[in-house]
């Protein structure tokens, strides 16, 4: 396998982009990424997206977006793995470059979620779950996470308020990210008083519905050398995908993200590192409970202790394992199919010293993890600054 480098990044401000359509949002991330990489053509474009068909009536995003950004003619297709679609597209790009098929690949994640009314978006998001045996019961995606959170609180005797540290950290970090949807800090008091949406999940446990796109340009080593933009080189040291059942009720232990454990074990082994070597971790905090379960399944905390890590301040920029360093899904925002690419863009910013006041000191190894559904597809990437 050939080494794969990230030679350009681009992203849009996350939020309600009423004036921009799906294709325009994709354009707004891809063109800056191409400019950043100083390329005019690529061998292929892989687009991560979950809900374009359901929410905008548009499928066939590969050709649509390739044409729209001036790349008519190249290989292009959409990659879908629910909320893990962004990292799934990155995985396809990685395979293409590492396998010697392509030399320069653009990977974009894009989602347009605000053209529809709430109940339609809610039903769309439930498509990440088992349609016949979860969604058919009228269970929303938020409710599925609420079921996990309630059980977690019961089994490990964790009060709801303790999860507030995840939300406070995410908002604190978003305040230093000009691309974040919610750049306003919140307090534990804000968290405690937030409106309940599916008890015990309140508004501050949950990531927002929003629009956004992010893009990266991948290159083989010779191309990375040819198109070097002067910044520190960032290599993808690991890329791994694992799966579990779509339905929570089909898992042997609902409070254990088996696919996170499987994919991170593969990733640690590819990169030749252990969790202790990771300088920061862009995890999938779609809900605070997912942040806790992710810290545990990836080896950063013992079972039932993920929330404790947040309480003890270990997840902040200065902590032992900084998470959501640019706001995470909670406060940067979670345009579902774009999220996995945002995570990687932010990891590159950290490794290249571009994170501003959110800069993790001495950041050399960053891990990103994108989750499809309530844990059915989990994709881990490890990035190394050289």
């Amino acid at each position, binding site marked *: 396998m050939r080494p794969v480098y990230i030679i350009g990044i681009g992203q849009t401000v996350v939020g309600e982009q009423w004036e921009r359509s799906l294709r325009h949002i994709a354009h707004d991330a891809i063109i800056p990424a191409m400019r950043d990489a100083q390329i005019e053509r690529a061998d292929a474009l892989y687009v991560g997206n979950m809900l374009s068909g359901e929410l905008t009536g548009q499928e066939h995003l590969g050709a649509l977006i390739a044409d729209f950004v001036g790349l008519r003619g190249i290989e292009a297709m959409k990659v879908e793995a629910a909320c893990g679609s962004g990292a799934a597209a990155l995985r396809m790009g990685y395979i293409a470059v590492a396998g010697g098929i392509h030399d320069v690949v653009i990977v974009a994640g894009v989602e347009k979620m605000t053209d529809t009314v*709430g*109940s*339609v978006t*809610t*039903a769309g998001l*439930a498509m990440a779950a088992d349609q*016949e*045996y*979860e*969604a*058919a*019961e*009228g*269970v*929303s995606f*938020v*409710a*599925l996470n*609420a*079921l*996990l959170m*309630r*059980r977690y609180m*019961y089994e490990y005797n964790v009060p709801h308020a303790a999860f507030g540290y995840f939300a406070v950290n995410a908002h604190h970090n978003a305040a230093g990210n000009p691309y974040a949807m919610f750049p306003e800090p919140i307090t534990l008091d804000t968290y405690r008083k937030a409106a*309940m*949406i*599916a*008890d*015990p*999940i309140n508004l501050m446990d949950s990531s927002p519905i929003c629009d956004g796109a992010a893009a990266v340009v991948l290159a083989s080593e010779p191309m990375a050398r040819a198109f070097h933009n002067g910044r520190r080189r960032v290599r993808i040291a690991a890329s791994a995908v694992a799966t579990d*059942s779509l*339905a*929570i*009720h*089909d898992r042997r232990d*609902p409070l254990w993200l088996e696919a996170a454990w499987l994919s991170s074990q593969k990733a640690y082994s590819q990169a030749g590192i252990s969790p202790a070597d990771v300088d920061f971790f862009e995890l999938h905090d779609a809900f605070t409970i997912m942040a806790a379960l992710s810290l545990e399944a990836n080896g950063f905390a013992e079972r039932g202790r993920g929330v404790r890590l947040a309480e003890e301040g270990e997840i902040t920029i200065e902590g032992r394992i900084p998470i959501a360093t640019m706001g995470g899904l909670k406060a940067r925002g979670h345009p579902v199919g774009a999220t996995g690419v945002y995570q990687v863009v932010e990891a590159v910013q950290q490794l290249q010293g571009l994170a501003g006041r959110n800069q993790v000191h001495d950041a050399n190894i960053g891990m990103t993890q994108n989750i499809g559904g309530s844990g059915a597809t989990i994709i881990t990437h490890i990035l190394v600054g050289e």
Partner: protein
Amino acid sequence: MTVARTWRTRRQRYSLVGERCDHCHNAIFPPRDVCPYCAEPAQTQMALSGRGTVYSYTTVYDAPAGFGEFAPYPVALVKLEEGPMVTAQLTDVSPEEVTIGMPVEMVTRKIQEQGEEGVIIYNYKFRPQLQRQARAA
């Protein structure tokens, strides 16, 4: 849920018919034809008792399209006596009365109404067990 899909899964929805694996003997619900425990074929039908306990629960306020008229409604993960877990709505109980570990039993209830021209969809829901003491005696 389309008419065809509802019809296709009627044995599961109306009488909790799952499977038993002939190799490792685990009970399986919903039926899936390949045992999730040992990966061997599993197509022997088995009706589950419908009795179980609440593993976790919450309330849906912002319902997905098609369920809005019934919101808010309590939902739960129910651990069935035979082993499998099932996601379902709770009924005949107010959300504040639900607890983890509460014994529940399956009943057939209306879950969706698709307007005057559409079909009414019935499904399993779970309610607090009625004859709990009688059985224990």
